[in-house]
């Protein structure tokens, strides 16, 4: 019994702490070098503006679109705080993101000669679906980063284009179990973001996988 307790104490309190100290911001507090690095990468990236409460999709140093945030909470794993490393800092550049649950597009297969499946039907009465109807948006989703940091999004209000189909009790139970999302404990920090249904759906439907996130003051 004593040996087990000693082992638990050892595992909990003597594990090395991971702190990314490689990146230093400029004296002004704004990490310009990281932004330049992202802008020159030729890829899409996101910026999270903590004080102004918005997320932006950027490319080549240009802010392409903004997503207004209703509320934002930063959380760190209690374990790392408890072991006395209160001065630990986090990197403000998070890389290689992945969206969960994954973005899926219900693609229409064109049947040759069938006007109802053609993208631009010549028959006036046929209205083809939009991406809003073809990409279902969940009311909660996550973005996970390589550094084990993650963002949890909760959408409030109506989600445009999302029609909730009838769901049996067993399916609802399965979905609930899936939503529990059992995963190993994260070493990294978590940001909880609440968005309106419109903004959240916009973000989810246009999300660029494997993109980076730059956190700005």
């Amino acid at each position: 019994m004593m040996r087990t307790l000693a082992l638990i104490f050892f595992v909990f309190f003597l594990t090395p702490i991971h702190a990314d100290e490689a990146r230093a911001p400029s004296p002004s507090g704004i990490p310009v070098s990281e932004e330049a690095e992202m802008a020159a990468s030729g890829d899409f990236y996101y910026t999270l503006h903590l004080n102004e409460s918005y997320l932006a999709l950027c490319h080549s140093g240009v802010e392409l679109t903004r997503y207004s945030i209703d509320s934002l909470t930063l959380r760190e794993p209690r374990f790392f705080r408890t072991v006395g490393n209160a001065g630990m800092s986090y990197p403000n550049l998070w890389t290689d993101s992945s969206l969960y649950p994954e973005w899926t597009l219900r693609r229409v297969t064109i049947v040759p000669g069938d006007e109802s499946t053609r993208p631009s039907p010549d028959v006036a009465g046929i209205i083809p679906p939009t991406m809003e109807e073809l990409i279902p948006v969940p009311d909660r989703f996550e973005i996970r980063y390589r550094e084990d940091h993650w963002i949890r999004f909760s959408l409030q209000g109506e989600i445009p284009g999302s029609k909730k189909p009838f769901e049996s009790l067993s399916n609802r139970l399965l979905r609930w179990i899936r939503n529990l999302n059992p995963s190993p404990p994260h070493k990294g920090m978590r940001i909880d973001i609440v968005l309106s249904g419109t903004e959240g759906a916009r973000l989810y439907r246009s999300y660029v996988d494997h993109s980076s996130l730059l956190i700005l003051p």
Partner: protein
Amino acid sequence: MKYSLFFSKLLERIYSILQRFLTIATSRRAIQGLMITAAAAWLLLLTVWLGSYRTLEPQDIQEKFFQFPQSVDPDPKTEKKMERKALRVLQNVRPRGTFVVIDRVHNRLWVRKGDHVIMEAEVSAGAGSILDDPSSDRSWVFDTPRGRFSIVNKRQNPLWTAPDWDYIERNEPLPRSHADRIQPGVLGEFALDLNIPNYMIHGTLYSRLLGRNVTHGCIRVGRDDLRVLWQRVPIGSPVFIF
């Protein structure tokens, strides 16, 4: 008489059960078991508590993300030099003049110069549908590509050379000559070619479908908005599609 006998036996039985329970409960083994259970419950609670998250206070955020780590020596000269270099990089990659931004999911287009929006328009982007050729192994996915592109050519009264998929989609035989594929008027008054073959921003015959995802990958724009694009967007302008 019968009843009193029954009750006395019942009381005896209850008393014996209680006596046995008290003997077990006060035994050394039972106390050990209780202690182990309590320790296990305490460890479980501790694990759950340590595995949970603690909310950061606003005053902690600056310290957590934007402070110099102790191991880095903030030499002001070096830092200033690095900042200037980074700003130069930013200036070089940012578009200097007019550029186009397209949201292919929500079918919106903006013509911008810096942060100033010159024009906003409702457009049509790729439908994302799939076409398989029943007579061969060929297949097409009608997506609008995502990324940074640029305008490489501008054409007035452009002609459209209909590709194979247009005939397969209509279930019509492929034309024998190239000349039979050329269709005037389909692309509207103007076409702005992107630096990816066969993708362009052009006009439409289907203005009723603007705002919907109905193209084979190109961006269709309404007549009036297309005229503004023709006038305001020069060749070489960047086009960001997300």
